[in-house]
């Protein structure tokens, strides 16, 4: 089976006035389908750049990246956007829900992007129940929910289009330890049901939930 993510000798250089900054240097790794991986490293090590590249928000300076076997290096903005929409689910530290939409609408949003029309809310409700959000909150707006509840909604939004990969950027960074633990248990449960999850974190406790840890130091993978 082909890897769900494949990095081949990836280099990312940011051209700045003061001189070029190499954020990632000759990175190569693979993530198999169904893996639960954490990416760790100190600040400025290149974690965020790696996450942006895996999430198709950016393209490499050199080297090749394959998402579910599809090379992204020469993709147009429209193609990269479609790839993000169809194959990647994002979970952010600050939840990043849309304050103008209610919970069900927030979760349905990626579905609407994909189908280009109004969608049945059945799937959104199903996913919200799967992340254990009480039904009574479905018509609330995000700001009426607690941090843990908001993150559950964000996870539901990431899952609604059945993505190949869930990319999580410090998913518990804005939660207390108890709520953070419950969110990680939810992730573990999703992993058990077959989801491929990549968590970027600086918290070793979070990394303990994962099968494998990739450590980044100075833009390189530390063995």
């Amino acid at each position: 089976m082909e890897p769900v993510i494949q990095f081949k000798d990836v280099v990312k250089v940011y051209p700045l006035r003061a001189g070029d900054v190499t954020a990632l240097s000759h990175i190569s790794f693979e993530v198999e389908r169904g893996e639960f991986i954490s990416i760790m490293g100190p600040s400025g090590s290149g974690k965020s750049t790696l996450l942006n590249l895996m999430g198709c928000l950016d393209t490499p300076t050199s080297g090749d990246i394959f998402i579910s076997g599809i090379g992204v290096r020469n993709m147009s903005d429209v193609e990269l956007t479609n790839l993000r929409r169809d194959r990647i689910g994002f979970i952010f530290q600050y939840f990043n829900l849309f304050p103008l939409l209610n919970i069900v609408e927030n979760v349905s949003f990626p579905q609407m992007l994909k189908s280009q029309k109004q969608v049945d809310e059945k799937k959104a409700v199903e996913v919200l129940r799967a992340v254990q959000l009480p039904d009574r909150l479905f018509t609330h707006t995000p700001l009426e929910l607690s941090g843990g509840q908001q993150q559950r909604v964000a996870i539901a939004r990431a899952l609604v289009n059945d993505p190949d990969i869930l990319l999580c950027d410090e998913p518990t960074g804005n939660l207390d330890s108890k709520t953070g633990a419950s969110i990680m248990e939810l992730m573990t449960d999703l992993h058990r049901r077959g989801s491929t999850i990549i968590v970027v974190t600086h918290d070793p406790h979070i990394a303990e939930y994962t099968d494998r840890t990739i450590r980044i130091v100075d833009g390189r993978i530390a063995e």
Partner: protein
Amino acid sequence: MTGIFWEISKRNIRIHMLRSSLAMLGIVIGVVAIASMGILGNSMTQSISASLSSVGDSVIVTPYAGSGGMGPGGGGGGSSSDMYLTDLNYQKIKRAVAPNVAIPIMSTSAHMKVGVGSDDIVASIYGLPTDDTKTLLPDLEAGDYSNGNSGCLVGSTFAKDHNIKVGSRISIGQDGEYGTLRVTGIIKERGMSFDISTDNALVVTKDWFENAFDRSDDELSEVVVKVTDGDTADVKTTIERQLNRNTKDKTVTVTDSKATLATIYETFGTVTTFVTAIGGISMLVAGVSIFNIMMMSVNERIKEIGIMRSIGTQKKEVMSMFIYEAAIIGIAGSAIGGALSLVGGYAISILMLKTTEYLFTVASMMSVVEGVSFGIVICLLCGIYPAWQAANLNPIDALRHE
């Protein structure tokens, strides 16, 4: 897909209701200014047009003001009011314009009294050949044309002001020294005209005029040519060629009513455009306000745009969201402005023209349509750049935005 972005735009306007309302108010003012000014301009043009409609296709020949034409005392020079065209001039004109009709007209002003013991009135009196009266004044409000020498027609305003009816008697002169006339008909209101202004005047037969005021055929005030065959401009040229052979020694001044009308319409058109343009300035100011508000909206929602882009929203979809917002403000503001401009147009028409007769005409309504369209277009144009900027934000930078 339009649905969710349309919904987000609507909700964003709703949560920033004060800000959106102020932007809308700018558009409302702009539309009202443009449409009201347009209505006023069009109403003025139509009002003038209606009062000049009786002019028709005519060419008016008067004595040349700069010539040494013959005056009442036989002297030369002076203003055209005390100068006359001769019978020879008239015959030449008549021959030159045939088969069109040339009508010789005499005019003066005189004191008169309506009935016994009434106030002394001063009004214009025109003397026309009996046969030509019907040609020049085809519409009567009441009564009929005079058969005999002692009958006269009066203008509608004159009749109204002095309570004159068909059969009323008017004695001409301070002590009636020129005789008494019986009103046989009332001329329908003609408004402003280039040939003779009858609304406040009397029209008598040329014979009566000559007898009463001791005038001869060589003392014509003007000649009106009713052009039924050919073009007024050609007739004008023909008359000038015949009577003004020498550019230094002109005999007559020839006025083409059609050309004069065209000039008047052109002038009113320019005035309308000018006042509408002044209204347009307020619309431009409103546009700047919309632009500012849209830029604020984009800046406040950079993070939201970053999230949208990261989870798979295309640039064009982000752009549409902001365009919808501008469109909602533009359409709502323009619609309200359009409705209010009818009220504004009504008020201006009443204040300046004393009538709302021309408010609901096609031309006036077109001003409202133009104002509303301009409002919507300005809003959309002012929304394009902010929308484009939002769509082209780097998703990574937008996500990091605090």
